[in-house]
């Protein structure tokens, strides 16, 4: 591929750059003319919302790091200094703390979209797997970020989570000491968590880039779950989806701003306003809401190693999801059996979240075990079997001319997209 790129940019400077470094042509190809199925619903906003969340988290985080002190004797007070002394420091901190929740909300809905419309199926398996890698990185980043304010829940959450690794036979205890940098959570732990909390978002950014590259190879899935057949099925990404994503971003920011400005501590735990005290265990140690379902799975198993295995298994199972689901049909709209079960799965995860927030006693133990069982049953038993048993509904011929329109509005022979795109 020797030789200069033939740039189509008219502006001489842009043309000069683009001829030597065709990054502008690439951006145009991937984000402007990129042919995108024309039938997206608003569930397809959430990838963009997650990207916006990541960007806002990185920006607020970089500014917070300018004022935060990662030292166990000073961290708590430095956060108070951010809240009281730094100009708009409270805004940075609350936007960042609430932002973690907003990021998870966006990603969880994005994942539900993938599950419901079968976006993980061939040929998008690797795209899905990269997404699960992002989720794992997010969880690690969020956990370490929660330790930084060095409140009671920071300290004891870190103790509980690092302790999980002691369940590994033989070398578990050594791994815990290695992770903590000492025999207990201390300054060494705080220092490394701060370093990693700053590093991992950039790793996430890298994986997001791969996620988008993979997406642009396979093209997007769509609510019908059928392949793009002709240019009539697609629209250029810009302006159609840039503007549609912008609507979602505005609404998303309204929710974000409302929580930051009117109830910034709603999603946090009061105990984290108490400085970390290694001598006083809080009456309850709970993770942030977005980790509660996994926490509930952990506690549903009476055996420590078993609980840890199931908790990590709950995420690992997502890696093999594309091969567990044996149905060739992607969208749940055409899968009469899968459709109710995927809703049950969502309910099971919500129940697990509630279980994780309550003491493991009485009805909560039972609910936790039932929901945990369903979670694994859904992926390991139901999905392989359903594909064989289910008689999918007839699929439409194409996105632009659905033979059967499940959402009303039949085929419109005269209608063509404003700018039909050549398939890339």
């Amino acid at each position, binding site marked *: 591929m020797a030789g200069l790129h033939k740039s189509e940019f008219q502006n001489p400077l842009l043309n000069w750059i683009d001829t030597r470094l065709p990054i502008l042509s690439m951006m145009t190809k991937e984000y402007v003319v990129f042919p995108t199925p024309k039938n997206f619903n608003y569930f397809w906003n959430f990838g963009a919302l997650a990207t916006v969340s990541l960007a806002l988290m990185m920006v607020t985080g970089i500014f917070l790091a300018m004022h935060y002190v990662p030292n166990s004797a000073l961290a708590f007070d430095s956060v108070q200094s951010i809240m009281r002394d730094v100009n708009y420091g409270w805004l940075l901190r609350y936007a960042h703390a609430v932002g973690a929740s907003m990021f998870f909300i966006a990603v969880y809905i994005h994942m539900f979209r993938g599950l419901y419309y079968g976006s993980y199926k061939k040929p998008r398996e690797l795209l899905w797997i990269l997404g699960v890698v992002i989720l794992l990185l997010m969880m690690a980043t969020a956990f370490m970020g929660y330790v930084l304010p060095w409140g009671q829940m920071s300290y004891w959450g870190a103790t509980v989570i690092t302790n999980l690794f002691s369940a590994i036979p033989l070398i578990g205890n050594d791994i815990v000491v290695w992770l903590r940098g000492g025999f207990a959570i201390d300054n060494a732990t705080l220092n490394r968590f701060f370093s990693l909390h700053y590093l991992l978002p950039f790793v996430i950014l890298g994986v997001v880039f791969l996620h988008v590259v993979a997406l642009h190879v396979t093209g997007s899935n769509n609510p019908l779950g059928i392949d793009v057949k002709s240019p009539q099925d697609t629209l250029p990404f810009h302006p159609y989806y840039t503007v549609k994503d912008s609507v979602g971003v505005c609404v998303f920011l309204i929710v974000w701003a409302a929580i930051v400005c009117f109830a910034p501590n709603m999603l946090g735990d009061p105990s984290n306003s108490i400085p970390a005290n290694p001598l006083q265990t809080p009456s309850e140690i*709970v993770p942030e809401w977005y980790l*509660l379902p996994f926490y509930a799975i952990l506690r549903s198993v009476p055996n420590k190693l078993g609980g840890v295995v199931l908790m990590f298994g709950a995420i690992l199972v997502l890696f093999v999801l594309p091969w567990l689901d044996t149905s060739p049909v992607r969208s749940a709209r055409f899968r009469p059996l899968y459709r109710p079960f995927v809703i049950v799965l969502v309910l099971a995860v919500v129940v697990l979240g509630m279980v994780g927030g309550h003491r493991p006693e009485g009805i909560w133990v039972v609910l936790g075990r039932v929901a945990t069982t369903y979670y694994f049953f859904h992926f390991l038993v139901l999905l392989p079997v359903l594909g064989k048993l289910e008689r999918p509904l007839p699929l439409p011929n194409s996105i632009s001319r659905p033979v059967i329109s499940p959402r009303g509005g039949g085929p419109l022979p005269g209608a063509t997209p404003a700018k039909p795109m050549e398939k890339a």
Partner: protein
Amino acid sequence: MMRRITGKGWGLIAAAALVAAPIATFGADEITLPHEKWSFNGPFGTFDRAAAQRGFAVYNQVCATCHSLRSAYFRDLEGIGFSPEQVKAIAASKQVPALDDSGQPTTRPGLPSDHFVSPFPNDDAAKAAMNGAIPPDQSLLVNARAGGPDYIYALLTGYTDPPQGAAVPEGTYYNKYFPSQFIKMPPPLSDDLVQYADGTKATVAQEAHDVTTFLTYIASPEMEQRKRMGVKVILFLIMMTGLVYAMKRKIWSAVH
């Protein structure tokens, strides 16, 4: 005297609250707290200046004997309506630790930029003086307790005779709102414990209400600015959403 603007903006965060519903956390099974009417509740809430200033008097004359306010500055008092001169005078009436010219520990009169002075030099000193219990720092107390201001108010007014047959451990007092019901802090408030400058009658309930208002301000001194900003930001974003949605409709109008 007490200003309360009931806000409708809470509906805005209802969606967010729904998402947060699963975190309905621990403590829900404990006794319910009475809901006080707070001037600072709701999206348009502000701190009742008179109540917060009376609350400072309660803190200054009662709480400060044992409880520190480490994160707060004297200058923070301007936020509840004290004039700069008043703040200067309040700060100057306190002695803050310092070093003299020969490097020996001494004290000097406080400045508005100084932190509130803690009653004990360190936790060990507090423990020794307080029969083993460290009085918690109050700068974030309202945020650090489930129930927030309602809990603080309930605790301060919740000292009653113990129920029949309850064995109150030595050195503790019965308080039905304290998690273990037996608290080492003696009832801190009593009628006419402080003389209010504005002539308000100092009942226990009034003192508890006022000091809770003050401590809520100290825990979140940015609250009024934050809520004012929230109203503007959300109005702007709603307009923006409308415009972007109209644009979306226009751009998509040719697509079928």
